[in-house]
């Protein structure tokens, strides 16, 4: 047995943050991520248990809630808890997803224009207000998009695709800046 230290590395996006025109792309650290998939008929109980433990209930489809940590709807019968360790939730399947995702923050006034180059959804503020979250597709990648502020969007994709994601975002930012 040796004295061993494992060093953590971040998803390989290339150099960030990057600014193009009015928009900035940076890598975020959303802290611990846990997927929560309540079993049949357990969503209510799991929500109550989660609320009791963290103050956060399971939010409705397409929305997220923030408190000490944050929780977002993440798919069919699925939520993602971030920025806090998961409490014990007996009625749900939990998996650690902390290392499974690359998380990028896109900030600036033209977020919807940039994202319009990449995802088949209307992400303008009126259609996708603060607190909205969605699963969608970006050029062959399954992604999650959340509006974290009027001028802020958070994009998550599989960690292994970090480079492709960052490249796709930067190219879209360049085009928006040029037009």
């Amino acid at each position, binding site marked *: *047995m040796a004295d061993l230290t494992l060093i953590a590395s*971040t998803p390989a996006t290339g150099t960030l943050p990057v600014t193009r025109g009015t928009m900035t792309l940076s890598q975020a650290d959303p802290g611990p991520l846990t997927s929560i998939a309540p*079993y049949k008929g357990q969503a209510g109980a799991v929500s109550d248990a989660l609320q009791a433990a963290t103050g956060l209930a399971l939010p409705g489809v397409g929305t997220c809630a923030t408190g000490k940590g944050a929780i977002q709807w993440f798919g069919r*019968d699925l939520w993602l808890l971030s920025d806090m360790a998961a409490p014990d939730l007996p009625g749900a399947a939990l*998996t650690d997803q902390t290392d499974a995702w690359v998380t990028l923050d896109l900030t600036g006034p033209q977020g919807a224009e940039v994202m*319009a180059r990449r995802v088949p*959804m209307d992400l303008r503020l009126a259609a996708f207000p603060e607190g909205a979250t969605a699963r969608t597709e970006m050029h062959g990648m399954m992604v999650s998009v959340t509006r974290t502020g009027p001028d802020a969007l958070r994009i998550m994709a599989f960690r292994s*695709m970090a480079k492709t994601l960052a490249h796709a975002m930067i190219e879209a930012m360049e*085009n928006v800046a040029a*037009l």
Partner: protein
Amino acid sequence: MSRIAGGLIDRTRPVSFTFDGHAYQGFAGDTLASALIANDQRTVARSFKYHRPRGILSAGSEEPNALVTLGRGTGQEPNARATMVELREGLAARSQNAWPSVGFDLMEVNDLAAPFLTAGFYYKTFMGPYRIWERLFEPAIRRAAGLGVLSKEAADLRFEKAFAFCDLLVIGAGPTGLMAALTAAEAGADVILADEDFLPGGRLNSDRQEVGGQASSAWAGEVTARLEAMENVRILRRTAVTGVYDQGTYGALQRHAPGPTRPLETFWRIVARHAILAAGAVERPVAFANNDRPGVMLAGAVRTYVNRFAAAPGQTAVVFGASDSVHRTAADLRRAGVHVAALVDARDAPCDLDVPFYPGAQVERVLGREAEGVVIRRADGTEERVQADLVAMSGGWNPLVHLSCHMNARPVWRDDIAAFVPAPGAVPGMIPAGACNGEVTTAACLAAGRDAARQVVSDLGLSGASPDLPEAEDREARAEPLWVVPGKGRKWVDFQNDVTTKDVEQAARENFRSVEHMKRYTTQGMATDQGRTGGVTALAVLADATGRSIPGTGTTTYRPPYTPVHIGALGAGGQGKGFAPERFTAAHPVHLSMTAPMIEAGLWYRPSFYPREGEKTWRASCDREALMVRNSVGICDVTTLGKIDVQGPDAAEFLDFVYTGTMSTLKVGRVRYGLMLREDGQIMDDGTCARLGEAHYLVTTTTAAAGLVMKQMEFAAQVLRPDLDVRLMSVTEQWFQAAVAGPKSRDLLNDLLDAPLEPEDWPFMACGAVSVGGVPARLFRISFSGEHAYELAVPARYGESLFRQLVARAESMGGGAYGMEALNVLRIEKGLLTHAELDGRTTAYDLNLKGMMKRSKDFVGRAAAGREGLLDEDRPRLVGLKPTGAVKQLTAGAFLFDPEAEPTRPNAQGTISSVAFSPTLGHFIGLALLKEGPDRHGDTVRMVDHLRGISTLCEVCDPVFFDPEGGRVRG
């Protein structure tokens, strides 16, 4: 120079450009076509077949003649329509399809041979002898055909794609579209207004008329400015809506004004709850002899050039048609200072202009290679020659119904306007309005635009006062259809493809009477303009030739795109690596630092081998790595295998259903090998299944099938077995995983893990939690090499660091990292399978795994796997092969035959799926699928690889070449 006063060009901004190397000047606001006209360039192109000189026919995207090449070399743009090219400083345009020059083209000799080159002549000749078509005729035809030249160099051109959403998409910014957009926008709708032109307004910019008490172009400018100021309106200039797709999806191509870092074009996918089609109409030519000569132009285009671009297309004009609009053309020409030598109206109509007027007369033919005059046939039958260098013609108008046809509706004929209009309800949610719907006056178009928008506003549940209709011209423009002028000579109906009325008539005689047959036989309507100008004329000729009415003859349908679209725009993002995401494991930097060549595995990149100094070939590295695993310890990045977390009260029962084997009997802390079938009974994938807890399993898949397996498992959970309470979650990305394989693997791990492994706790196929450097990890004692081996998984962030540590420790023990090549050697030595064997056509029976199908329970594929044909004894089944002949090499993809048999299809006995040189055994080994294979161990077969020119004898053997008892893996 034929530049005249007025117009909407910006005379303060002169623009220099070249055409065929000659320097010219135009102004901002010109198109290339208008600037060429202003510079008296009449012949600008050559036709496709006869190489006849051609001038500019139109002023829009319907242009069939004036195709030019922009730029030179890499990135040059062939087949640009001069009428759509916005003039810009330094623009270099060239004529195409002509040699040596557009003025003198040797291929014009084709025009003399025209009697022998009529419709479909090539179907009747050039036959045989053997291959003379490919060797002689076809190359000549190919060289002569085609238009512009595509550069074979890859240009670094930036295109992009984008999505947009709106309540209302207005297609076209003429009077109808502007009024519709304004009405809907003022009611609060989210509006996109798209127009092909760089200047909104449509014919409001081309005709001299008043709207709302001011020049129509000024009104268009004012409305455009109002719309631009509104937050709920997006005006997409230079944007052609190219296609209509299901549920309100529209494709649209936007050209951008050039700039150094700008994309050239954006291809939009617009999702619109409603659309108003306000595409307008294009004018039809009239079929008279030599109507294709430079100087013959559509009358409406003449007005556009005179009124909007201040460019006179000639000095002396003959104007010909059967509508009031030709009178307007004559008036505009006069006002512009062009001498009108004759106004020829095929109707017996009055004329209030002071020009030579020919009522009830027709232009019979054009004189000169470039128009020098015309022959007029008067109402009394007499002929008159009139000198003119410009012939303005109008055969009526074709409403632009194209987009209304994209969802299969056929347009309907309206006799009163002699034109096709969109079928009612042709596209759900799209309202045709204005000229494209058969309206003929500006006032009617404005009203139609407003009414259509009101309908949309009401459907959206919005309210609000509509803007007032501005006053506009309301005079009924009378017109009579005018198709073909009787008389001799060739009369063009398809200018670009050189189709004349004679071709259409001949097609009818040869029984190509269906309009689709006629089109395909004559190629009418198949050119870049898709017959937008002359298509209905051709239909009229066919109707006449076959004794049917026009609607009785039919119409052709229109398919996307409405206007040609660069592949670069539709395929934006695909160039280079952009075609599909790239996936990298956490240890990718380590692989690179060890100079491993990376190969694609699905979307992932994996190390092929890790070359060391002195190793000259991949085989040298591969042999060393394989022996390393057999003799000490090797480390392999296996992160890319799919990992699916299965939890729930019914997880065990669920896995019994998706696997052929039984997973419910697996003990916690143990791993089992599993097969998954498709419902057709053939193998989909294999992998391991680890039981982490009573109600918690971890399923692994092959790299290639990970997505497919997840999909099938979700299908099973949600659709086939909704009674089971189970939750699936991919954890492929969460975990970095490395194989630690070889006799020293336990030593290595004991040196690495926070607590040593107790041998009795870690038998073969055990799994459990461990800790490494304080990081919680998972360990599986599984092997894909036949050696005592483990797979160690840590959260991905530690993957790079862990892999470095593992490799360093392995190297210090005489081992090291191994890549895909060695992994493949090791698994073939053990007869283990990959997708080379699991090729989607093999069954468990074929791979000697029939025992893995627990038929006492239901599982996906169980029933179909029981089909008699899948259990035939002579199916090719898995065996091993060793070369025994003079040639000691085996090759994958080779076929197997009996030693004395001819290597032909009927004699084929099987194929080789995988081969490797085994450094441990010192010879090549192979896995093969051989008919009755398991019964033929010890037999000799001949391997034949025709393609590689290799043939050898081999011995059929058990597919497990190394340690068949499995002592090493358990030890």
